[in-house]
């Protein structure tokens, strides 16, 4: 028992320390120019970490404005899309005959490339508000909504319908109504599937928020900054925003992990 817990603890420590060592090695190779030799590139396209950090620290205020704009879009779109996706899944589970066909349609949205989707949606939402900032934000949120809807609806549908063996029959022997069956059996059963969906759609929401900014009328956001700077050949600044985008993604993912851990713990 004691041996086991020690080995478990060691394993936990390892899973933190080993990636950190790898990361440190990578950054060292990057800073010393070894990475440039390996990848056959120059310090212009791949600036040194110190330069990137300098730019981030010199422009913190501006970067935070852009981060806030992107995070807003990603989070609101994610929430709205997941909610809609879940409602579609409920609908599909309630009317399996019509629902599964509807699910196919929803997942078809996933097959439309976001570079095509974003300009279309921005065109469709032109008249939401006379304020460019408002209608741009709205359009970007809708893009993220559509993207995160599909993964949630497909996964939640599985969670609502793939029930443990006999549980359905058990509910019937208790003479439970459909509402009881839904709240006591289907809903809890779908919770892990919700998190499966979110693990896909959280990174997806960040990326699609960044891409939707490319096309938006109101010029703001981390994605827009990456693109502007690359097109005017400011790679160091572009890198500063790429690193920022990664951090945003990681933080959002970490928050999801914490929420998942809390929820799953409670369920046990």
């Amino acid at each position, binding site marked *: 028992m004691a041996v086991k817990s020690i080995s478990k603890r060691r394993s936990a420590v390892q899973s933190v320390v080993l990636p950190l060592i790898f990361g440190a090695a990578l950054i060292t190779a990057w800073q010393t120019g070894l990475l440039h030799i390996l990848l056959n590139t120059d310090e212009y396209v791949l600036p040194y970490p110190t330069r990137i950090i300098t730019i981030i620290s010199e422009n913190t205020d501006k970067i935070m404005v852009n981060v806030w704009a992107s995070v807003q879009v990603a989070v609101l779109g994610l929430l709205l899309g997941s909610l809609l996706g879940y409602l579609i899944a409920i609908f599909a589970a309630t009317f399996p005959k019509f629902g599964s066909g509807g699910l196919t349609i929803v997942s078809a949205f996933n097959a439309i490339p976001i570079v*095509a989707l974003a300009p279309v949606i921005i065109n469709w939402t032109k008249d939401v508000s006379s304020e460019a900032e408002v209608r741009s934000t709205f359009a970007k949120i809708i893009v993220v909504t559509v993207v995160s809807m599909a993964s949630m609806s497909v996964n939640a549908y599985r969670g609502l319908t793939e029930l443990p063996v006999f549980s359905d029959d058990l509910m019937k022997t208790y003479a439970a109504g459909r509402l009881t069956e839904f709240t006591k059996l289907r809903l809890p059963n779908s919770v892990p599937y919700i998190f499966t969906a979110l693990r896909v759609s959280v990174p997806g929401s960040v990326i699609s928020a960044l891409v939707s900014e490319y096309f938006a009328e109101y010029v703001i956001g981390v994605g827009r900054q990456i693109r502007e700077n690359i097109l005017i050949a400011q790679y160091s600044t572009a890198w500063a925003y790429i690193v920022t985008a990664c951090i945003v993604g990681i933080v959002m*993912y970490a928050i999801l992990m914490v929420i998942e851990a809390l929820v799953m713990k409670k369920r046990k």
Partner: protein
Amino acid sequence: MKVIKKIIGSKLFITLVWIAVIIVIWEVLAFRVAEVKRTPENVLPHLTGVVDSLTSSKTINGSQTALEMVLENAGATLSRAALGYVIGIASGFVLALLMSLSGIIEKIAFPYLMLIQLIPILGMAPIINAITGDIAISRIVIAAILTFYPVAANTLAGFKAVRREAHELMYSYAANKFQLYTKTMIPACIPYFFTGLKISAPMAITASILVDTLQGGIGLGCLLSQSLKGAMTRYVFWDIVFFSAVIGILSFYLMGVLEILLCPYKRLEKKGR
């Protein structure tokens, strides 16, 4: 047999009903848009207009009609997608295998596997282009990067799921590691592997359309962005939107069919029903 046919038939029917509903809504709105915009095709064209643009024999550039153009460019994009997909699958599978074989590799690689899907890879495209020195190779590499995560993650989940029971059983047979993997682990994780394949097939296609837009040349994404930038009729844009949606769905089903063809367990499952 009859029952299966009936189910397929009815599901198809329902999907068709859904499509019909969407078409009706689309057309109603298209009529509204046509009334009030000078260039309605930029916002919401009539579906008949989209179909017309595909069947019309009018040439868009010097020599090709819209349909010929879309098909030729689709050929280029889809072949790049297929190549990137295969590379992504292979590297995803190998990485999952390595991670399953060695705890150390798993611990090192796992956080970075997560990280890859958090990187705005499109923003890094010029950097990848600078490294590979060739736009065609960059496009394939980016498509591979974008598709490899679902395969790796799902395959790894498969290995983990079967590890315990399989281990115990095979140890009792005194099997070595090679036998353990070839006889049980790999076959057992195939369903998970296919789940990854199904998720990433449409992704490979959207990814290669996306990377087409990085630079000119031949490809659906190039056409799409040219049409969007007014270099040709806007209907080409709509043609590609519909075309890519259809191809994306087909690719998903293609993987399902492949699974049934290649894997005995699926056929058994079908018969069992």
